[in-house]
């Protein structure tokens, strides 16, 4: 396994805890916080120890305030994010992660951009239906919250997309740190953590049978109800336990890092013959992009007839055969290997090289789990990096 940066160096990049005043730390805690791997918990933030009854009651309060609540529910044996009408529908039991990422609640699979009506030679354009007010996305795994932060980079920082920005503005995110890792999980390999805070306004950390709720942003703090005055503040022991669990989950994810520092080597591996082998297996079904929390490519097309309809934005995938095909028939990426290479390099080379070293992958593992032919993007990245670093087959 070739490695250019250790997890420690990488964790340092992602946010080392800062020493400050007013910390009540044991020697051991202080030592641990000096460990650069300690990327998750900032013990200075306010926290409460809450039980299931308390968070359900809190969700009820949010619903009564008129907020839309999106949370994991169990449906046909699958865990899925749904807009719920009561807190009782929310199911966190045995929930590893949802089948689909929560991105559709910020970046819908299909959305009308505007409507059109043809009246003789004239055309009348209409605004799309407004889609509601405040929404709270509850129970997102930290990887998925980080995935939404990637969408922010594309739809806010790379030039603001007004409909995304409006939806993002009225959305608050409550993440749920992991108490277990699934075989396909690899957040730690891409700079994340089972208790990662990127993209979260509030976070629930598991504590054997209860949870530690912490606010991470002012927006998150505003969501904490007045009844929190009656909640038990998290004790030092609670924080310690949450930290122990985080470390335990983190250690159970035995993946070598896929470093953003590999990006130039991967980019240089563009012409490697290896892609032929890696991409021949791909059947071009596109499921990897549809379940991915950070994939943001879209199509724009008219849905309707010659008299009225709407111009719509829809999810798309770079592995689908029509993605880059010109009307003339010319296709810059005419083969499945050329399309699969684009998918890997966009996430692990082109995007990090243009976005301060952040990968366009958060390690949720959905693509690994759901690929019908068993393609593992981690393996592709590692092999392409090895081939690029050794310069084998370079033209």
């Amino acid at each position, binding site marked *: 396994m070739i490695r250019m940066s250790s997890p420690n160096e990488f964790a340092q990049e992602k946010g080392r805890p800062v020493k400050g005043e007013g910390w009540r730390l044991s020697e051991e805690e202080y030592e641990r916080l000096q460990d650069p791997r300690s990327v998750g918990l900032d013990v200075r933030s306010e926290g409460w120890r809450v039980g299931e009854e308390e968070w359900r009651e809190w969700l009820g309060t949010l619903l009564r305030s008129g907020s839309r609540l999106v949370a994991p529910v169990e449906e046909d044996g699958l865990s899925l994010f749904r807009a719920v009408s009561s807190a009782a529908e929310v199911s966190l039991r045995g929930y590893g992660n949802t089948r689909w990422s929560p991105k559709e609640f910020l970046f819908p699979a299909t959305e009308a951009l505007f409507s059109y009506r043809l009246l003789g*030679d004239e055309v009348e354009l209409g605004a799309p239906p407004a889609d509601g007010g405040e929404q709270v996305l509850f129970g997102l795994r930290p990887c998925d919250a980080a995935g939404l932060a990637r969408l922010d980079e594309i739809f806010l920082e790379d030039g603001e997309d007004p409909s995304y920005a409006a939806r993002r503005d009225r959305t608050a995110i409550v993440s749920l740190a992991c108490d277990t890792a699934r075989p396909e999980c690899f957040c730690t390999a891409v700079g994340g953590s089972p208790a990662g805070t990127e993209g979260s306004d509030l976070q629930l950390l598991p504590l054997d049978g209860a949870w530690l709720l912490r606010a991470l942003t002012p927006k998150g703090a505003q969501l904490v109800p007045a009844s929190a005055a009656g909640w038990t503040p998290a004790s030092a022991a609670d924080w310690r336990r949450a930290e122990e669990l985080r470390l335990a989950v983190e250690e159970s994810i035995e993946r070598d890092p896929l470093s953003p520092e590999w990006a130039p080597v991967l980019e240089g591996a563009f012409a490697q013959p290896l892609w032929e082998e890696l991409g021949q297996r791909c059947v071009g079904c596109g499921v990897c992009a549809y379940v991915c929390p950070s994939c943001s490519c879209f199509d724009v*097309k008219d849905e309707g007839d010659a008299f009225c309809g709407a111009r719509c934005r829809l999810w798309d995938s770079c592995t689908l055969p029509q993605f880059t095909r010109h009307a003339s028939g010319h296709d810059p990426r005419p083969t499945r290997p050329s399309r699969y290479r684009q998918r890997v390099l966009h996430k692990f080379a082109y995007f990090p090289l243009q976005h301060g070293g952040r990968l366009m992958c958060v390690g949720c593992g959905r693509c690994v789990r759901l690929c019908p032919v068993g393609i593992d993007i981690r393996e592709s990245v590692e092999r392409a990096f090895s081939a690029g670093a050794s310069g084998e087959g370079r033209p």
Partner: protein
Amino acid sequence: MSDAGRDRFLPHLMRIAAAREETPDVRTVRLEFAEPEVASGLQWRAGQFAHFSAFGAGESVLTIANPPSRPGHIECTFRDMGKVTSALASLSVGQTVGFRGPYGNGFPIDEWRGRDLVFVGGGIGMAAVAAPLRLVLDRRGDFGEVLVLNGARTVADLVYKEEMKEWEKVERVRIVRAVDPGGETRAWDGEVGLLPDVFESLRLEPDGRIVVICGPPIMLHFMLIALDRLGFPPERVVTTLENKMKCGVGQCGRCNVGRFFVCRDGPVVTAAQLASLPADL
């Protein structure tokens, strides 16, 4: 033009003011803005492109064929090729289309001052050459000699036939027209041959010339090889890239060639830049 706050996908409405069938499948339309204030506020550079829409069919990326020195309206030339262009081709004068743009970088015309210029347009690629060429002709005194090399598969496929006669009358402008072997007619008095061969037969020296080439990928490929062999430095060979695009601002994710997004970083590139891009074209 400031479109701040306006949804980027919401097009301006334009009326087809005139349409000209250039060839059996190529059409030029002149579009006028439904809102006059949009027309007066619109600024663009030669070489920039826009999304043109036929409502019900969708949007298509086309170059803006009139230069900013001829403002107040928009002109575009397109081949009836896909769903949207065939819908645009079927619309009549007076009907409404959508326009959003401009996007992309445009040609660095000011860097060409004082130089001799060669414009090579193959087939519908002539539409991409039109804006910088017209701008150069509108600012004739700023540039040296102008050679226009226009090729097509057959005589019937040549575009801008009438306008070319006007261009020919401009001082120090030479027009060379060519058709592919077999595409000539009995009355044809131009060249017969593929554009790279015709270009070579002109025996031009590099001499600081700027060469602008626009055309199908296969023509570009062989033109670049020919220019390289003839010693034209790649920094002074300029072309435009084309790819499928859905947004125009680097977000839809399909026009990129490696890290280079054609919509945002292009479409105008030099042969030197092109050589540094991965072979994903």
